[in-house]
């Protein structure tokens, strides 16, 4: 094991323990070295004024690297890490930095409708031009035609545009054009204290509000060298598992319903609603938004909270076996799910896909186990992994995870001891990074604070950054009518990537 890329990054000047700065020539070498070290997982790429950062995860954990920039371009990583393409496009749109030699130079977040271009750069230029027409990758062949869908959809979902190139019913190419939900979140965080900016992190993707808030809080705590009180850590774990349960129930029901089998959705809906009401009784908010904050949790669990939550969890526990068996044995349902939207394990591995998407395609990674952060370092659980990579596998995996989360939530609730729940944050500079397993996969958050304790730069990477391009790949050669099922089985977040 020579691990040339890891070695190269480690040779760079260490800015903080986990982040190394490279010279332009080293960055170029990194591109070649990454090709020779496919097992180094690419997590994300972003920028701040005057630098680009890239994050990796390998045998020795998280590794960040930085290229300080004098000009507005840098050598692209997408030729060796295809997942980098979406990030490079975003970096160009937000910071005006071009990826030299990148695989895709089209804009994505910037639709030409903001008052200024490169809004996060040092000198945003006013935008005078008319919004351009979007360009899509071509597909050639006899009888190929296009089907545009969105940004306003038929169901209750977030805005996004899908461009299908189809030949008959067969999908030759699917492209997701997103960015409609771009809210400028990263820009809003700058110059605020971590406490004040936490509400933006909580709203990066509402269904993962706990996971994003936790990753954000953990990055801030790492930057400030602070360990939240044990009770707060346990409560974070409880909330994260509840969030996973609620989301898995939701998509389980919806997926069955999309395939024409309505009964599981009715039952999952009843169970989920009972859980959301218990969450409101326990934490004062149905989705537990703004509960996890830097320094701990903003609100302690209500006195009756543990019992209320246990009752809701017991209701799910009681119905779970039958619900699962019925979903697994319904021939009509299986007929629609099995073999649909296959994501090949090789591709999932190359993209380092997280969460149930990756684990249903053989990628055995779960931040709760692989990084064993508290409180998961002291909880026993198994990480289910499947290899078939189809819609059925993604659903089966979520059922298996749900079962694990039910017992984890119980365990964590049982361990609650009276104590503090929130610490004050020191006012000082620092830099931190964190990886927290949300229901979709691991959420990465990196944060740099200036000497006044205000955010100089921050980046939050939802797992959906990797899932969107993989959804495109999984739809290739499928049929158009399977798209709703396939899309639901990935359930990537629009807002989570649009930022």
């Amino acid at each position: 094991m020579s691990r040339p890329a890891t070695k190269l990054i480690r040779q760079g000047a260490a800015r903080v323990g986990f982040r190394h700065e490279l010279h332009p020539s080293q960055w170029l070498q990194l591109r070649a070295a990454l090709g020779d070290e496919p097992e180094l997982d690419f997590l994300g790429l972003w920028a701040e004024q005057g630098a680009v950062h890239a994050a990796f995860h390998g045998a020795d954990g998280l590794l960040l690297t930085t290229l300080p920039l004098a000009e507005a371009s840098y050598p692209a990583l997408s030729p060796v890490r295809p997942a980098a393409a979406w990030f490079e496009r975003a970096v160009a749109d937000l910071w005006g930095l071009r990826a030299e030699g990148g695989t895709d130079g089209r804009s994505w977040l910037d639709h030409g409708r903001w008052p200024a271009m490169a809004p996060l750069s040092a000198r945003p230029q006013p935008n005078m031009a008319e919004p351009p027409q979007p360009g899509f990758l071509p597909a050639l062949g006899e009888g190929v035609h296009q089907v545009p869908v969105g940004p306003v959809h038929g169901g209750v979902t977030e805005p996004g545009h899908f461009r299908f190139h189809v030949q008959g019913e067969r999908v030759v190419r699917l492209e997701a054009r997103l960015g409609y939900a771009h809210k400028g979140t990263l820009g809003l965080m700058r110059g605020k204290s971590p406490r004040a900016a936490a509400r933006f992190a909580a709203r990066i993707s509402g269904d993962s509000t706990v996971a994003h808030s936790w990753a954000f809080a953990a990055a801030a705590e790492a930057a400030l060298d602070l360990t939240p009180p044990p009770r707060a850590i346990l409560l974070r774990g409880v909330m994260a598992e509840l969030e996973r349960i609620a989301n898995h129930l939701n998509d389980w029901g919806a997926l069955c319903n999309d395939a024409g089998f309505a009964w599981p959705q009715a039952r999952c809906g009843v169970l989920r609603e009972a859980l959301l009401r218990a969450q409101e009784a326990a934490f004062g908010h149905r989705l537990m938004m703004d509960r996890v904050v830097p320094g701990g949790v903003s609100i302690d669990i209500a006195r009756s909270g543990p019992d209320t939550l246990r009752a809701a969890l017991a209701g799910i526990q009681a119905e779970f076996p039958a619900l699962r068996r019925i979903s697994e044995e319904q021939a009509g349902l299986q007929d629609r799910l099995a073999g649909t939207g296959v994501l090949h394990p090789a591709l999932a591995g190359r993209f380092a896909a997280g969460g149930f998407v990756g684990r249903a395609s053989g990628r055995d990674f779960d931040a709760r186990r692989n990084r064993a952060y508290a409180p998961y370092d002291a909880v026993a659980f198994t990480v289910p992994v499947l290899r078939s990579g189809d819609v059925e596998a993604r659903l089966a995996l979520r059922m298996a995870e749900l079962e694990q989360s039910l017992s984890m939530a119980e365990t964590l609730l049982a361990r609650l001891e009276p104590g503090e729940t929130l610490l004050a944050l020191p006012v000082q500079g620092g830099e931190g990074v964190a990886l927290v397993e949300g229901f979709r996969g691991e959420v990465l958050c990196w944060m740099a604070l200036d000497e006044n304790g205000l955010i100089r730069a921050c980046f939050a990477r939802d797992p959906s950054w990797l899932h969107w391009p993989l959804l495109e790949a999984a739809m290739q050669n499928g049929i158009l009518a399977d798209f709703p099922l396939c899309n639901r089985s990935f359930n990537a977040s629009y807002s989570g990537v649009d930022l």
Partner: protein
Amino acid sequence: MSDTPEPATDTGPPPPWTPLRQALAGLSWPPMLLPRLVRDLLRGPQTDPAPPVPEITVSALIERLDAAARARLGRSLAIRHVGSGSCNGCELEINGLSGVVYDLERLGLRFVASPRHADVLLVTGPACRNMTEAMQRAWHCAPEPRWVVAVGDCALDGGVFRDSYAVEGGVGQVLPVDLVIPGCPPSPGLMLEGLLALVEAQRDEDEVPAGMPPRAEPGFRNQG
């Protein structure tokens, strides 16, 4: 060969329930589903009673719509959700409305797949600039009379995102809003209250308040 041979004894005519059992077996239901369906039927609805509707909201809404329009809308409303860039928290709660617990349809409210079929545009999220044109197009597609309901604090005034370069502000910056349902996100119960107020506002066909202010028409930003 896995086929088991027929037993030699004559068992006589089949019992009367055999055809039913065969028919059920032919449906290929998993063995556990049927008893559960029966149980669900017997235990009665799990649906919550509808919330009371605030009178003050209803009268405010009545003032916004003339009698002819009310008569045309009738006591049932078709709703089209339009996401203008929410964080998806509001969508989660809207989705809850169609579930068993809130069961929107029993109250004459239903979601439709296109703005062209809609009486109500239910808008979530701050008015993201990248969505402005799409929202206005959706609004123009919806036949008149139509309501615009802004759901959530973001839709109200941009919420936490109101100072962003990427956001116009609340949905009211882009479309004429008739009703706001605040919250982050508002609970399904609160949304149901607001939507029922819309249905109630169609109730009286007599009194038309005089001197209704004309509603402002939004325009496309990029089309003169």
